[in-house]
């Protein structure tokens, strides 16, 4: 047959692996001899990973300080009334051991629906990209935060920007009875793409010129061009705190990076001792049953503290091992001779 190939009729189908369905294929045959050891191996591997993750997660130190002031005994209770302006309160805390560095400081909000769709779309991306046309006529999604009562355009417009978190914190270490401020690093807390690609200040110096004829968001104490007057690269729309806020949280209980502690003697972490946290309380969340907290945490190779992942691995791994034992018993009891 092979020798007469040149005489082949055009009607005869081509002899290729594809047309003759001879492409290599593999179908696992799930026999007890493969499945039971396979389950044991997978189970052991999962348990191994789980133990590793769990231990790592346990080593991560986390300190959460709730300063909402919902209860009268809280140090910040006096500030929780929205009518009080420029309120400051102080929280004391004690560290028994060294809080290993680098230490990250987060602020956390609960029951806060940053992931609500209407809230999330209430911004003007072109405006935040520095498009001056939109400074005069913000996108309609920003409504009702597109124009103020005098029909002046709000920049940056929208509910998202308007609700920017504006509590500020200062951390002091008590050394020999006196307060010593811990330097906080606000650089490099936002996404690189946000700062360099997605957000951009309008052209022209000084920045304030671009904002002529606009007003600041209603809730903001100062305008966008005043967010950080000391650093041009941290001012306006590319202010790191602003960027962190504008990147919406996925869940209603979230925390966002506020500062890092990386400088001076605190590079290795916060030494044991007493600390004092001074809070400028401007942001009111009690009206929607929200809570505010400050979180100190360090990280491991797997990120922040997350016990769940390790536990999930351990549970699945144990289940695998358990099932393999069950299957072994079943197999021993009802061995099917024709299986081979």
């Amino acid at each position, binding site marked *: 047959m092979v020798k007469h190939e040149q005489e082949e*009729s055009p*009607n*005869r*189908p*081509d*002899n290729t692996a594809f*047309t*003759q*369905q001879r*492409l290599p*294929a593999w*179908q696992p045959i799930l026999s007890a001899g493969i499945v039971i050891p396979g389950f044991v191996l997978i189970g052991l591997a999962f348990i191994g990973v789980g133990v590793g993750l769990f231990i790592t997660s346990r080593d991560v130190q986390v300190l959460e300080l709730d300063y909402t002031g919902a209860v009268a005994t809280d140090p910040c209770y006096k500030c929780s009334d929205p009518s009080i302006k420029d309120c400051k309160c102080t929280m004391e805390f004690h560290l028994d051991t060294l809080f290993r560095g680098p230490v990250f400081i987060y602020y956390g909000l609960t*029951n806060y*629906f940053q*992931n*609500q*769709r*209407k*809230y*999330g779309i*209430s911004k003007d991306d072109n405006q935040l990209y520095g498009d001056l046309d939109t400074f005069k006529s913000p996108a309609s999604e920003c*409504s*009702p935060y597109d124009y103020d009562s005098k029909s002046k355009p709000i920049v940056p417009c929208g*509910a998202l920007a*308007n*609700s920017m978190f504006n509590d500020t914190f200062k951390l002091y270490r008590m050394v020999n009875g006196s307060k010593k401020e811990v330097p906080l690093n606000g650089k490099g807390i936002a996404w690189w793409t946000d700062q360099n690609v997605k957000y951009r200040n309008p052209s022209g110096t000084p920045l304030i010129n671009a904002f002529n004829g606009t007003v600041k968001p209603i809730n903001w104490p100062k305008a966008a061009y005043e967010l950080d007057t000391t650093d041009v690269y941290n001012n306006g729309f590319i202010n790191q705190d602003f960027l962190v806020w504008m990147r919406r949280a*996925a*869940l*209603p209980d979230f925390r966002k990076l506020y500062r890092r502690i990386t400088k001076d003697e605190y590079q290795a972490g916060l030494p044991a001792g007493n600390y004092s946290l001074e809070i400028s309380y401007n942001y*009111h969340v009690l*009206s*929607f*049953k929200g809570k505010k907290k400050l979180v100190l945490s360090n990280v491991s190779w797997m990120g922040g503290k997350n016990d769940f992942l390790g536990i999930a691995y351990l549970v699945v791994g144990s289940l695998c091992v358990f099932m393999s034992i069950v299957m072994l018993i079943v197999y021993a009891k009802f061995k099917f001779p024709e299986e081979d």
Partner: protein
Amino acid sequence: MGTLTYAGQKYPLDNEKILLRGCTLRNTEWCFGLVLFGGQETKLMQNCGKSTFKRTSIDRLMNVLVLCIFGFLVFMCLILAIGNYIWEINNGSNFTVFLPREDGNSAGFSAFLTFWSYVIILNTVVPISLYVSVEIIRLGNSFYIDWDRKMYYSRSDTPAEARTTTLNEELGQIKYVFSDKTGTLTQNIMTFNKCSINGKSYGDVYDCTGQRLDISEYKDPADFSFNPLADPRFMFYDHSLVEAVKLENPEVHAFFRLLALCHTVMAEEKKEGELFYQAQSPDEGALVTAARNFGFVFRSRTPDSISVVEMGNQRSYELLAILDFNNVRKRMSVIVRSPEGKLSLYCKGADTIIYEKLHQSCRKLMDVTTEHLNEFAGEGLRTLALAYKDLDEEYFSQWKQRHYEASTTLEDKESKLDELYEEIEKDLLLLGATAIEDKLQDGVPQTIEQLAKADIKIWVLTGDKQETAENIGYSCNLLREEMNEVFIISGHSPEDVRQELRNAQNSMKPNGAVNSLLLFEDMGKHVNLIKDEVADGEYGLVINGHSLAYALESTMELEFLRTACLCKAVICCRVTPLQKAQVVELVKKYKKAVTLAIGDGANDVSMIKAAHIGVGISGQEGMQAVLSSDYSFAQFRFLQRLLLVHGRWSYLRMCKFLRYFFYKNFTFTFVHFWFGFFCGFSAQTVYDEWFITLYNLMYTALPVLGMSLFDQ
């Protein structure tokens, strides 16, 4: 149909004078004609339109699934809308510090909007692109069938062809195969193998000790060199018949003269001495070829004469009448006047029919010939009996007149003609019988065995006589010696048939027979399904045409079906094309099973169209079966590969594909559903819009398609 009056003469216009659309006119340059029906009203077009659109059970399942999923989508959206309502009341109203609510937007209105937003977001769960993908997969799998070299038949240079792309996965679920015999199980190449002339049987070869030899091993064909017009491909091994012809044995001569005259074959002689026969059926061709080799060469015909070379002498017979063949008469006759002026009627047909017409005087010959006929049929040969009669000139001219009158009447012409035919075809004298062999195709027994192993039941529906069919059944492994019993149903009255069916049931299933009979009555009224039963052993069933007619009546069909389904193999013989379709319909009606009909001839078309899947064998009998089929190939043995390889793969792939497809859509969509509980049911998406839009189209189309085309 009508009459034509021309120059004072009346001419009958009957079926024979009608050329149907698609016919080719031969042996004439021109003719006058009258258009009766045109366009849509021609027979060809009328037959074409009737085929129904075939769908697979997966199709129906898919439609139901998609509807269910759509319902599920609405359900999910309702839950989310209600959730949104609750959220707006509990949380949203408080959150207005940061997200003020526009005037007039109550929680109810917000929930209403949310419902529609989620209909849009969650629409990925409804597999709209599913239908497109399914069609692509089917197309791919159909191409695999077209491309399969293992289903290519080199001798006739025909590859398999999937003529429909929608039924592939149904191939994997076939439970019943209805097969034609001639041309499907057999090659439909007829060879004149044996004959019985005047009580002497020819065709067997004996060695010197009187032992019969197997012809296939014997390599000494008879010598036809005395006849210059002989067909060199014709083989016959019994030298005694040639001797008998040469000795001018009158019965032998009459026998072959009949074969040379009584037929409807057309001869074409392009070059002197090179004859080609155009026969309506291969049987006729084989018989005329046999007569040709034994010295009675049919050379040409005109509407009223047949010219034959008898042992080298050219003779022209005047053709006076053709009493044509049909399924009821099962015989044909010609009335000719020899050059000497002798009037004769030559008749050939099914032995049972001919025997009823014979004259008393040939009783003895009948007994001997019957023995031979049974012997032939026992070897699986197709038999015909031949008879003749000399006619009285006066009687014939009177008959001819009546024939003419009958054929020109408009009312009840058929039955009047039949009566006339009956009248003249009586008191015939038996000449002998012919036996034609129709060889089994390659690999048929193995294929049938494999299919039986796959628990596919094979029913053979054939027009052959019972003995022939039974024998083919044995030779192709359908009926086996190891079977506990092969029941033969051949009753001539409804009561007989019912009794025979009951007996068969009782011996297959001694217990429970009574119960199931009661069950029948219930089922006949309410549920139209018969459950599968298992017999106590392996059984076969052979049922005759006339018994089948009773068995298919509505009062007995359930009983018949139940008996037949208990058997491993069923052979129905002497069935008409209509009965073939009826049997298929019966199984389709009461069994929840997928049926396949396979056949090669025009008489199988009805069955091919009736079954879930029709397979056409492109063989000797033209293209009609192929044209109405869903799949076609050249050999019966390819059925094994079609069903057990392509069908199985298509089915498994389609099932895997559907599960994979639903799985990926559900996982994708549930993320949004789940996230709804965290984002205040606000229809916030998790993924980028482009990703959502192109998820089905691009990101996940290839793995799914790849799996469903290459999975093995």
